[in-house]
């Protein structure tokens, strides 16, 4: 059954987490621990940290993120289509072409608008 697979995934997840944590536990036992205020400072090329951590990011990040989200959702529609394509007729190709064209138009729009330019 389908869900059996995911028991394994769950176990694997545990293994992965364990695999990550085990050496860290070992580190906690073995490694030296000498705290000092300077050491615990945030690293800034040897300069004392000033100001807050936050920097104002450019809006580009959002634009790329939104394009990513849109195309990611698109794949959710593309995969089932691709899997079913063999058992469907031409109409499936037509529909998908329309869908792809719509999404591609979004990309072309962002392109033409000049927002795909970093810096």
């Amino acid at each position: 059954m389908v869900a059996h697979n995911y028991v394994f995934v769950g176990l694997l997840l545990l293994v992965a987490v364990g695999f990550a944590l085990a050496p860290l536990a070992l580190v906690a036992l073995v490694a030296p621990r000498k705290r000092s205020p300077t050491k615990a400072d945030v690293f800034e090329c040897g300069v004392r940290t000033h100001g807050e951590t936050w920097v104002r990011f450019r809006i580009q990040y959002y634009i790329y993120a939104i394009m990513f989200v849109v195309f990611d959702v698109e794949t959710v529609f593309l995969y089932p289509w691709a899997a079913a394509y063999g058992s469907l007729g031409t109409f499936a190709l037509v529909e998908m072409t329309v869908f792809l064209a719509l999404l591609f138009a979004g990309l072309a729009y962002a392109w033409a608008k000049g927002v795909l330019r970093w810096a």
Partner: protein
Amino acid sequence: MPPNVVPLDLRDFLCIAPALVLAFWGLVVIAADLGRFRRLDPDARRVACGRATLVGVGLALASAVFLAWVDALAQSDAPRLVALFGDSLGGYFARTDGLIFFGTLARGLAVDVLNVLFLVLLAMVVWMSTSYGFTDDLGEYFALMLWATVGMMLLAAAEELATLFIALETTTICLYLATAFERSRRRSAEAGLKYFVYGSVSSALFLYGLSLVYGLAGSTYFDAIGRVLRGGDAGLAGNLAGASALLLLLVGFGFKVSAVPFQQWVPDVYEGAPAPVAAWIATGSKVASFVAMLKVFVHALGPWSHPSGSVMGPGWLGVVAVVAAVTMTYGNLAALAQKDLKRMLAYSSIAHAGYMLVGVAAASVSTEGPASAGAVVYYLIVYALANVGAFAVAAWLARDKGTEAIADLDGLAGRSPSLAVCIVVLMLSLIGVPPFAGFFGKLYVFMEALRQGPSDTRIVLTWLVALGLFNSVVSAFYYVRVLKAMYLREPSGRPIEPARPALALPIAAAAVLVTVLGVVPGPLVDLSRSVAVPMLTAGRLDVPAAVDVPAPAPPAEKPSGVAWHPETPTD
């Protein structure tokens, strides 16, 4: 082996040609704006974009009219269709089942009439958008308006919840964005965010209700839901899950049609949005939502309206009646205090939602079946026409003053006498003064409400009508303020400039249409009645259109369509 997949009939796309044209045209407008029109100066670019958009709307309108003609022909003279278009296409057009895309969408005259309405309104809205420059992103703006219309058309035609949901979201998401398009002003961005927050919360609530309905009925098709619900008698009485589902759906639709208590966003959004967008939210979105609401509540959930024959009993009829009463009273009273034209129109549109909800309530208990929903359709048409005109006035003010205070209209009659007359007509129609169409809209809704149903529902509806009449009188006060400003006051500051055609034409066209429909209401009333029937019975081939009799029980070998009925352990 996978069973053979029933292929999609690509001819189905012909029936949504107007929507397809608009969807495609949105891309065309963006491309034109980014390409050809980029170098024009702002005013010329705006006009060019607007004209380009109008061309698309015109194409869509042509296809919608063509489809209306075809569908009318299918009812009257089907063989001729076959003769005209050949066996394949003509035979397809002549089909009368009224459903396409595997039953998820309706086709037919009802859809065509609504499409024509949407397109006419859209043309006015697009035209008035060219009157003043509120955004730099013109191509995007017009495309979003077109795509919102696509959503509205399909929302009004949806016969199934998944399609309904995605169409609803397409509409509202486009409108959230369009609301925030006025870059020069903070309030536009704020209105967009407010609209978004309220809207997405309400659609989350709506979705939850929808999921419960799906669970209860086991299907997402309106007709199948109706059939399942007709099979039982529980109604809301013993079924808190059903009650929650209904209330949540009501929240969703209540938000979209701006019924109290889900109206908080309305004044702010109408005020903050650019006037054409506000016009489109107030008319197009409202029309589509009301049609969808009629379908969901009367067609799918109709059996739950008043299951035990008592209006205050456990059905949604009582809830809707209360909401309608509160909505119209609140809208009218709040509108009295407004000094800003768009806020006044916002509250008045809340009030109109109240009147139309009376019509929804009436349609569900009608003695003459779905035909009485025609009253709501008629009301929607005249309301939308008058309101588009009124918002064009707001756009006029926004163009010259940047704000929309009613006081800015002072003394308009002296300078633009003909337009002032048009505005008078629009206001009178909104009040419901004969002989304008608004009067017949109200009359018709109230008449339907009065002649409905068994005695106990009749009492409640009678009270509703009485309240509605009282409210109409109240509404006269604030609409008349506009007239008073135009005719009785002298302009205090700089008077507004005369309207250019982009503003004058929508106002005049709306006024003319409202007058014509008021003087000769017959044809449109008949049309509304006749389209309301297929609208609310699509897919219901077993039921005669006029009478709402319970469907025969589903065949015995099927598991009775009950979603959660425990499987008997025999298998």
